């Protein structure tokens, strides 16, 4: 019975993930006074792209083709590690949070290699920027998860979020508040949202993430888009599980609340995108250093407790 539930959780996450960008777009549209795209727009796009035949430039090699596949594969694997509403997923072991970070790193690495493989100036620029920000974002994320492991005393993601309860907020509120802030900043940067990047930009010079995937088409692009939505889901789930660790025992109500929170986070991202302008490129590292500072503070707090 348990295995069915975890499988169901996994499938729900995998299927609902493309809904999040839709929510964000709707919120942004609402703030801009527009009606906006349908919620399920990304599903249509994915479907359309999957049917198309990809076009490959003659200068590219197998690395270019492997990039999106490795990317989406590592993100799906990462999703399998991720607890759902505080419940363990079917793939959990001690220290899996480190594995999670490496999976994200692998996805990034594959995308960057594919971008470099094209030999295009824009893609190289995008790859360079992506890596530059990753240098700041990854330590922040890693330290944050380490702090969370210290708070709960659990070495696995499932353990961490299983042990996290409302009581933890009563005893370790400062740490959790700092972590939430840090994760949210990392989410914005990692998912190329405003203020780090603008997903809607059409000017290659200002792009970061988008610039890397300019040459992908057809199913490859579908993989990349799907991978991006999975990544958003992943970070969103971490934030939800930190902010609202609810374990009533009832699987259905927990899950419902969790899903509601996920859409809440997506709406939050939409609001941030609507009210904040994009940062100047040179200022983005400052933002990520702030996240790093938050995570480091949380860890120091926890260590000395």
């Amino acid at each position, binding site marked *: 019975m348990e295995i069915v539930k975890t499988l169901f959780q996994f499938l729900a996450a995998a299927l609902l993930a493309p809904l999040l960008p839709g929510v964000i777009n709707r919120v942004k549209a609402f703030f801009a006074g527009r009606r906006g795209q349908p919620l399920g727009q990304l599903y249509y796009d994915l479907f359309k792209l999957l049917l198309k035949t990809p076009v490959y430039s003659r200068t590219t090699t197998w690395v270019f083709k492997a990039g999106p596949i490795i990317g989406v594969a590592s993100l799906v694997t990462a999703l399998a590690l991720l607890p759902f509403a505080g419940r363990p997923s079917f793939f959990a072991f001690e220290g899996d949070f480190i594995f999670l970070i490496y999976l994200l790193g692998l996805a990034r690495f594959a995308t960057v290699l594919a971008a470099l493989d094209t030999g295009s100036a824009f893609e190289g620029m995008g790859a360079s920027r992506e890596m530059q920000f990753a240098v700041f974002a990854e330590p922040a994320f890693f330290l944050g998860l380490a702090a969370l492991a210290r708070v709960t005393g659990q070495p696995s993601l499932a353990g961490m979020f299983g042990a996290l309860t409302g009581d933890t907020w*009563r*005893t370790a*509120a*400062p740490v959790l*508040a*700092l972590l939430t802030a840090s994760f949210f900043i990392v989410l914005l940067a990692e998912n190329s949202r405003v203020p780090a990047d603008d997903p809607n930009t059409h000017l290659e010079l200002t792009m970061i993430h988008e610039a890397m995937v300019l040459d992908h088409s057809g199913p490859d692009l579908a993989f990349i888009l799907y991978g991006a939505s999975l990544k958003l889901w992943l970070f969103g789930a971490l934030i939800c599980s930190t902010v609202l660790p609810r374990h009533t025992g009832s699987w259905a109500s927990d899950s419902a609340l969790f899903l509601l929170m996920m859409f809440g986070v997506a709406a939050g991202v939409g609001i941030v995108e609507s009210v904040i302008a994009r940062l100047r490129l040179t200022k983005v*590292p*400052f933002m990520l*250093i*702030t996240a790093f*500072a938050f995570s*480091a*503070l949380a860890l*120091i*707090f926890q*260590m*000395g*407790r």
Partner: protein
Amino acid sequence: MHTFAELTIVFIILMDLALAVTGSLSSCIRLVALQGVVAGVLPLLAGHGAPHLRAVAFAAVIISLKGVIFPWLLMRARDRSGAGKDVEPLISYPASIMLCLGAFIASSWLGSRLPLPEANVAWIVPASLATIFTGFLLITTRRKAITQVLGYLVIENGIYIFGLALFVEQPMMVELAILLDVFVAVFVMGIAIFHISREFDHIDTAELSELSDWRRGEYGK
């Protein structure tokens, strides 16, 4: 209640970080004032039960001094001296924030090493030490005279929080004398800044370097 006090402590530390990265002089002044106010409120949060009337009165004095009068004096000094809007650090902001974080790590280590009486609010000692370090950072790595006054005030805030952590009850008269001194210090420094701006046409302390034994006697002839 204590969670609230602890969150306040975190807030104070975050303000230290913010002070390390803020590039605008007026928000620096506001941050220092806010930190002073938060530090002034802290004893009311940390105690058990309803706060004592004396404590409330003293907190009111501190809040009005640090939250209203100091920022007013400093803003006035800034406007009159034509100090401009920027802080003008000597080191980059990421370096500032890293130094600040390092200071916090050092002070939490120091806080655990000091044989202090058990504080009833966690992190109050490291937070106070980190605030003092931030004050030194502001004094040493910022160019303008006014930021040095701000650094002095931040040090003063940190020492005040440190005093709370140790529960050293000073007699009212001494506390007031200390506050009076700090007030006069800010006042006198404000006047000095005004004179510096008139004499030098700016308040860049890097220019205050004529008196030195390392480049003796270069002035004049």
